[in-house]
């Protein structure tokens, strides 16, 4: 079982936003985190979001302080992960794609006529 470090950068949060402010880390260095667990809370000019972890692993380093403004693409966090297949070069963490919730539409009180 090989270990490797993976650095995850601030993802593109959409809407042409180029930066975000770190509000609160949801993990500490040395803590184990699961994929999709809450990683960090950030704020843009539009809204505040909790970014889920792209990896399961141990948090090896946080690259931004709380209240720090981070440009999209800048390093955010480094994980130490275990790889069964041995190390793979050039891996960059990605935000897990959100599973679309089943959305329904109801017509409320449809007209009787």
């Amino acid at each position, binding site marked *: 079982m090989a270990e490797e470090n993976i650095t995850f950068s601030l993802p593109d949060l959409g*809407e042409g936003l180029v930066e975000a402010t770190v*509000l*609160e880390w*949801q993990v500490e260095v040395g803590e184990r985190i699961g994929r*999709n667990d*809450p990683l960090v*809370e950030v*704020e843009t*000019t*539009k*809204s*505040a*979001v*909790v970014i*889920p972890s792209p990896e399961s692993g141990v948090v090896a380093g946080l690259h931004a302080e709380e209240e720090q403004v981070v440009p999209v693409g800048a390093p955010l966090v480094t994980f130490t992960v275990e790889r069964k297949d041995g190390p793979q070069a050039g891996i960059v963490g990605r935000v897990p794609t*959100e599973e679309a*919730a*089943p*959305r*329904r*539409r*109801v*017509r*409320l*009180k*449809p*007209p009787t006529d």
Partner: protein
Amino acid sequence: MTTNPVGDVTMSYVDLLPEAPGEAVPVLLLHGFGSDFQMNWGSTGWVRDLEAVGRRVIGPDLRGHGASDKPTESAFYLPEHFVSDLVDLLDRLGLERVDVVGYSMGSRLAWELALTAPERVRRLVLGGFGPDNALAGVEEGVPGEGDTPFDQVYRTVVGLPGNDADALAACALGQAARPFTPEPRPEGVPILFAAGAKDPVAAGVEGLAEAIGATFVEVPKRDHVNAVSSRAFRRAVIDFLEVDADEA
């Protein structure tokens, strides 16, 4: 205007079942003005937290918002119309009783729901909300052109993808027609207020909570926009909702 403007509006919602459905009371989440379910509750960690404690989540996009219909006349946006939508939705889903969590305008509507149908609401959480009329003056001017806390909220949300400026203006006017009053309060429903320490929209909330015998939690260092995703806020609400959640 029609005689029954509430009638023909289609509402989009999600119904999220936990992995291990139990007896716990479902939670109805009501988003704020100019937001929608996903933005207010999905991307901010709430759905995940509620699912982690085994709660079923019902998440509508309120009329005028998200993927729901967006009429552009204020006559479609009175608080009682939203309440009618929500009671209808609970009936459709066969839910006798839910916990309700609102934020900002969603809190105003959650209050109205609990006032209208207290037997349908077990516990009530009002986030980012206070006794001041957030919509004071909206009827006189153009939304977003003044300098009230609401004007600031309006300017923030009006340009978001999917929002319809005419529908939002109509919604603001409809809401302004029914200012909040703290009396009477919803009968027999435990209430938690929570707001950012720097949230001008919620000014005076602590006094309101005390006056009506509710609990108040302040979210340190946060304002109206960034209190929503705060871990301290989410934890306080879940602690409040978890009281006897399996016994209702």
